[in-house]
């Protein structure tokens, strides 16, 4: 099982990446070679093993419900398009949310 052209197109859509065809041609064999590494996992006795999502077996730290004041967050300074105290984005419907 490895990534093919169709998978690549699907994944690019999911990841919201628009890349030129030349990059797709370049990436595909590279990605396929990377996925060939994954076979190494098949040599391990994985059956019945609990998956680990974390480095440590720790419990989550919780904070108190106390508000904190904020310094200037440079929103306007960093925003690509700032309008009326908000981040402005191009029209949403013509392309559709995907």
């Amino acid at each position, binding site marked *: 099982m490895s990534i093919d052209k169709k998978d690549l197109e699907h994944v690019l859509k*999911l990841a*919201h990446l628009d890349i030129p065809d030349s990059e797709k041609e370049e990436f595909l064999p590279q990605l396929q070679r990377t996925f060939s590494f994954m076979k190494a996992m098949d040599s391990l006795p994985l059956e019945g093993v609990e998956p680990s*999502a*974390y480095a*440590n077996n*720790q*419990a*989550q*730290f*919780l*904070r*108190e*419900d*106390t*508000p*904190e004041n*904020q310094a200037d*967050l440079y*929103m306007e300074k960093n925003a690509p398009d700032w*309008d*009326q*105290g*908000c*981040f*402005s*984005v*191009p*029209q*949403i*419907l013509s392309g*559709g*949310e*995907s």
Partner: protein
Amino acid sequence: MTEFEVVIGIEVHAQLKTKTKLFSTAANNFGDDVNTNVTPVCLGMPGALPVLNKKAVEFAITAGLALDCEINLTSVFSRKNYFYPDLPKGYQISQFDLPICGLGHLDIDVDGVTKRIGITRIHMEEDAGKLLHQGADGIAGSTHSLVDLNRAGTPLIEIVSEPDMRSASEAKAYMVALREIVQHMGVCDGNMDQGSMRADANVSIRPVGQKEFGTRAEVKNLNSFRSLERAINVEVKRQKALILSGGTVIQETRNYDDATQSTTSLRGKADAHDYRYFPEPDLPPLIVTQDWFKTIKEALPEHPVAKRERYASELGLSQFEIKVLMGDIETDTYFNAAILVNTEIAPKEICKWVVGDINALLKETESSFSKTKLSSAHLAEMVDLILKGTISGKMAKDMIGKMAETGDAPAKLVDSMGGAQISDEGALLEAVKAVLDANLDVIEKIKNGKKQAAGFLMGQVMKATKGKAKPDLVSKLIFEEVKKR
């Protein structure tokens, strides 16, 4: 013709009444200036990390306990990945595999019969920000949109029901009961028009007798009891028409528009989402210790069902009074504050005014129990004055309007309203004697058994005292004096 059965499951998002957001220390406040209640965490800044609000966990568990849910002392947060401008990180932190609460239930009243609705789960998650579409009323036709992230990160619990409801009115009853629960447990203000409680309904139909469920459509944007009821009826009608004309219902999300009273498809099957859920690596598992769990249980506010019972059995409130109090959390909060001011006063005496005259006045003036200048403390003082005989009920009715208008204390108003009621026997006896002396014929009538004639004498005494005489005392004195003559 085929008879159809309607099957409804409801997902409710309820915003928790915490001071800060779910994962950031920004204020959790509705209605402030755009992009003011934000921190680097709410903005999805590079390097910002979520840290869970302990209070939100307590609220989620409180709601779970009130709905008889199993509480998972270990639960896990996941990332739900999708792109949208109101979602700053490109993923929503939510609970997926292992939510904080599992199976529970809620009993609703359907035409006087109790019906049990299953709760599938309750999970915690963060709300998204808001988009302000420009150049049109909504997203359609807008030229661009503005992003306000004040709501981003607001703590939510999503309460998912089993598909146990069979009609729009059952769905509404469920929603009403659920709102009562979250309000009285103190976890959500239940304010539907501000969006602090939002419902999505999963609606399907199947021929009566069929075991399998039909294909469901998820109807979104149900922000009032009325729109919930209407949207379900509209959607059921659509599905019936579709099936009867040989079509099939497809699984999709539909938006309900209250203006046109119709539902429209939000997105087709083709671009079905792949949310790529995976455990949120920034947040290790949430472990609720037995000690903490015990503390939460001990601090649990009174369940609405228990409260109703107590109101009836201990406070002696009528079913009508209980219904009014429980139907609106502000009214109930006000009532409970007022009865604490002076515990000598029977709560029933206070309740009379809360559900009666004050409630009517607030409706009339488009005010509310949380906004009115008539404080619960002043109400308690006023009732005290009535019970002590300082003012009459009639005076109190006038006084309520003034208190709501000015916020003045009853004691202050007593003077400006012409002074206290005359309840001094000696003073009143003078007036009674004078009236009797001037109406000897009436005394005769009374002695001959026409007791109602005393009303005339009473009127005369009132006139003489400018209405300030304490009526029951006057009545007593009149009969005593008549007897003596």
